[in-house]
């Protein structure tokens, strides 16, 4: 019998020892992880790794752009100098400008959506960029580019352009992990806007939000708006979570039968608002039950009602600043694009004549 087969009949003692040691190490880490708090060493290390990988992901995009530029430069370098080199170069620049302008336009649209949301809900807080998404099927979370150095702490509410999307679950120095509402481990205390019935919205593995723990006589109907109630202090109060899209036939305390449409999906998120402070508003009233509004402050929903103190935010608004900068940059890009285009056409006309 060959020597290899004899050696492979069983692992050596060293391999067995290593196997046992690794099992013990894995079990020890599991036990420590399950019993330590969010500030424990394993949680902290995990948060740091997730933040670092998110930042590296951003670098990866930069590397990709650099590689594309190098490729373009190489293509230009190999071109025949007697051809339309100048026009080609200008064409490339115009294309780049066009791409940049399109990027700015999309960014402006997104920031405008966020700004609208900030204005109608009158929250204060910085805009964060999404720099990473969950690499696991079991975890619905995103990584953003703001961390504890920027004032972000665990537990803060995070909003997209259409409402609440989740909560900061871990804050590292320069990045944070946001657990989305659609994660099965998420739970937000909410209320039905029309009936003021309190309940809990939970995520699920199928990506839907379920409204649970609702009183039997206060079951919502399709279209009812769901807002955070602020109970328990986990989420800021009065922020839009979504609207009821389906109510099952079950009666009291329906579980998994009342479906709420989630806000922006994780795949579409590029910028989010970290809510530092939400106004002390009463839960908004609809036209049918406006008598319930106590201080005359209302929260606008989908642009149907206007907040009476939209401009009450005293601090400089980072979203507005970002929007203005983006608009200015877009205008400059468009002007430059138009000027270059005219010049290009002129030169091309001259070339054709020649």
């Amino acid at each position: 019998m060959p020597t290899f087969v004899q050696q492979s009949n069983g692992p050596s003692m060293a391999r067995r020892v290593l196997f046992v040691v690794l099992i013990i190490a894995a079990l020890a880490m599991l036990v420590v992880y399950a019993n330590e708090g969010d500030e424990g060493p394993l949680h902290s290390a995990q948060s740091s790794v997730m933040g670092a990988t998110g930042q590296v992901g951003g670098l990866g995009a930069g590397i990709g752009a650099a590689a594309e530029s190098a490729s373009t430069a190489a293509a230009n370098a190999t071109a025949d100098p007697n051809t339309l080199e100048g026009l080609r170069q200008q064409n490339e620049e115009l294309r780049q400008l066009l791409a940049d302008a399109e990027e700015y336009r999309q960014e402006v649209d997104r920031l405008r959506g966020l700004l609208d949301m900030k204005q109608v809900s009158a929250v204060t807080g910085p805009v964060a960029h999404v720099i990473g998404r969950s690499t696991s099927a079991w975890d619905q979370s995103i990584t953003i580019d703001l961390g504890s150095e920027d004032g972000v702490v665990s537990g803060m509410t995070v909003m997209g352009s259409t409402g609440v999307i989740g909560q900061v679950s871990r804050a590292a120095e320069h990045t944070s992990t946001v657990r989305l509402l659609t994660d099965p481990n998420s739970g937000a205390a909410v209320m039905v806007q029309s009936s003021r019935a309190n309940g809990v919205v939970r995520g699920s593995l199928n990506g839907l939000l379920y409204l649970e723990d609702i009183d039997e006589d206060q079951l919502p109907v399709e279209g009812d708006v769901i807002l955070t109630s602020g109970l328990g202090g986990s989420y800021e109060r009065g922020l839009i979570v979504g609207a009821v899209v389906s109510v099952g036939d079950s009666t009291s305390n329906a579980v998994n039968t009342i479906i709420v449409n989630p806000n922006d999906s994780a795949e579409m998120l590029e910028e989010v608002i970290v809510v530092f402070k939400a106004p002390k508003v009463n839960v908004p009233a609809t036209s049918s039950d406006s008598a319930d509004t106590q201080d005359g402050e209302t929260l606008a929903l989908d642009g149907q009602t206007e907040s009476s103190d939209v401009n009450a935010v005293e601090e400089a608004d980072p979203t507005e600043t970002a929007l203005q900068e983006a608009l200015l940059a877009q205008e400059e890009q468009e002007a430059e694009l138009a000027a270059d285009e005219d010049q290009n056409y002129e030169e091309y006309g001259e070339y054709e004549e020649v």
Partner: protein
Amino acid sequence: MLGSERIFVIVGALVAVVLQLFVAPYLSIAGAVPNFLLAFAMAVAIARGSSAGCLLPFLLGLVYDFVGGGPVGGMALVLMLVSVAAARGFQLVDNDSLFMALVPLAAGVLVVEVAYGALLLALGYQASLADMLIYRAFPCFLYDFVLGCILYLIARRWARPAGAARVELTQLR
């Protein structure tokens, strides 16, 4: 000195980590995210048979735990145990055909997904067993099994120990 198969395993593991970090999140289908680390570890375990160690699946599982947000040590433990068992099982079958290799590969990937889901549930993950199986374990199993088949075909060529060919020749005689 490192043999070519070990170089393949090391480079492949690094590539799998990179793919998991930067590509996998964008390949999500209906909530199922591909697990390159699991697929690579299982493919190498089946390809190397008794020569497969326990360190690679442990390390890849640990990477998954740290970047995936799950309980640290969970995937490391499950992946190591299942890959070692699958490798030993494949060795006991004593049939080196492609089909017989894919059976333990499929079984291993499925067991890892279900066992990891069960572990999460035991640690307080807010989902039912049925939801776990229907919405995560089975879709992820299908995804990872397809990846595992591709990676196995590669690993079969590059990750097998040098003596494996001699064993096959001996069996043929």
